[in-house]
């Protein structure tokens, strides 16, 4: 146990002789991708305590949900985690649909599943590019973005947006996809799958990358579970938990979802989990699109002019690209929710940093921070 002493000293009193050094990482530090601040207490190069200070990007999303109708909420929901906009919209839509007892047309369900998987690929590609960048490898970023571009074109053709899709609606999707879109989407998936080995070869077994990530920042499954860590970060520590398989929503129940896990729990395992998940998601999206091509019918339901969820409450959770997102919706029968609690993956995942970083060296801090795969907007909401 580290002996803790707290003291208040005036400036210039020579406190550095007997106090620990406190180093602030952030709120504006390139490796925090946004405005996360870490208060590190150092003993030389070694971190003895870490306190993540969050909230610099708090936009009050949950409070805003209470004064926006359900269509407007979708627009807010796709912004807290800007890398998984489609999946976040989806969670809100699922919660409202459950409370209202709306059955979504089958074609919409499969299209949603396909798009959710493509969004997961987009999210993972971003991290697969930016994580090596943070620890000094610039090139993977270009390959990751080349693939992202191909998939973003697919999303833009259907929804009109490249990042904030706004394509979900209560009861289905905004509109039917353009003619020939499924074919073009499948071509894009094939192209990404064909070119993924470029990124894979560049970085997965690179000696320098391995030296920076192997055995660094080992997160034990117990710690992961205690902090409620989920998603690829938890699966890299051997937590075999994936809502797509364990509590299927959308069409996942009819799909065989392979869950990518590792047991090492270090930075490299987390990176590998993400990399392998990309291949899995591409396959899943492909299968969904094949199914979409066999279904016909509408992609949304006719809604009343004013959408009101009946009085009651429900909890929906989804496997977002970064982990488990939960939506606790309480309605008093009005056109806005009385409360919509958002449980975001990044928020839980960064909590683990306070124990994960203790005992690590400062240079390893960047490797660990980057490998926790979080979006600051998703933490601060």
């Amino acid at each position: 146990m580290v002996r803790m002493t707290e003291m208040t000293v005036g400036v210039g009193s020579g406190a550095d002789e007997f106090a620990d050094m406190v180093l602030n990482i952030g709120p504006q530090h390139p490796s925090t991708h946004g405005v996360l601040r870490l208060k590190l207490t150092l003993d030389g190069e070694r971190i003895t305590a870490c306190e993540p200070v969050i909230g610099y990007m708090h936009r009050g999303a949950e409070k805003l949900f209470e004064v926006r109708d359900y269509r407007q909420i979708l627009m807010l929901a796709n912004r807290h985690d800007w890398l998984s906009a489609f999946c976040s919209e989806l969670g809100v839509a699922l919660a409202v649909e459950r409370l209202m007892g709306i059955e979504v047309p089958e074609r919409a369900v499969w299209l949603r599943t396909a798009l959710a998987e493509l969004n997961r690929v987009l999210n993972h590609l971003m991290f697969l590019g930016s994580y090596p960048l943070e620890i000094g490898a610039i090139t993977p970023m270009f390959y990751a973005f080349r693939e992202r571009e191909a998939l973003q074109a697919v999303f833009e053709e259907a929804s009109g947006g490249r990042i904030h899709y706004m394509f979900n609606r209560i009861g289905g999707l905004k509109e039917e996809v353009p003619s020939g879109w499924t074919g073009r989407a499948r071509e894009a998936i094939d192209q990404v799958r064909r070119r993924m080995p470029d990124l894979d070869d560049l970085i997965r077994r690179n000696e320098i990358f391995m030296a920076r990530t192997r055995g660094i920042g080992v997160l034990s499954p117990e710690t992961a579970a205690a902090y409620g860590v989920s998603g690829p970060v938890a699966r890299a520590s051997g937590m075999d938990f994936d809502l797509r398989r364990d509590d299927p929503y959308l069409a996942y129940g009819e799909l065989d979802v392979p869950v990518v896990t590792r047991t090492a729990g270090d930075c490299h395992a987390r990176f590998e989990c993400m990399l392998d998940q990309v291949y899995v998601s591409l396959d899943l999206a492909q299968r969904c699109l094949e199914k979409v091509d066999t279904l016909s019918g509408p992609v949304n339901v006719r809604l009343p002019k004013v959408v009101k969820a009946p009085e009651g409450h429900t909890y929906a959770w989804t496997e977002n690209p970064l982990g488990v997102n939960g939506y606790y919706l309480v309605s008093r029968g009005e056109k806005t929710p009385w409360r919509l609690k958002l449980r975001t993956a990044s928020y839980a995942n960064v909590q683990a940093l306070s124990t994960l970083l203790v005992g690590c060296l400062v240079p390893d801090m960047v490797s660990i921070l980057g490998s926790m795969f979080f979006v600051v907007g998703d933490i601060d909401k």
Partner: protein
Amino acid sequence: MNIPGSGLAKGLAVTLKTMTRPVTTRQYPDEAPALPPRSRGVIALLEANCTVCMLCARECPDWCIYIDSHKETVETPGAARARQRNVLDRFDIDFSLCMYCGICVEVCPFDALYWSPEFEYAETDIRDLLHEKDRLGEWMPTVPAPPAHDPRGELSKEETTAEKKG
């Protein structure tokens, strides 16, 4: 295990392979990007279709649409009594606030608002991002025809209306 330097060699092989392929980068200002018709670039206003129902301004999540209007009496020869009609005085969209969600375009019951893929309207002063109705009207010629829907899905709104009329 690994031969020392094999990771580096593998990486360089990728670089070498990419070197022989055509470039992916598009030289943007010289080469215009091909944007799909649904692309949400800017909102165009077809003033003649607007009835000042205020639905767009009310449904906008961040209230960035400003509408002013007045009533005018129209005397139609032969009609029993004069009719009142709304005249649009001001229709502004503040693109510095707009979140590009498209709710206004979706709720407009008279098809007065359209998405255009045009995006080159950046300004050096944030106040210039407030587009007035004339400026919004200027975007109208850039609005593309909507894409045909997947034949397995339902027909588009436009096609259904055309069928009813036809």
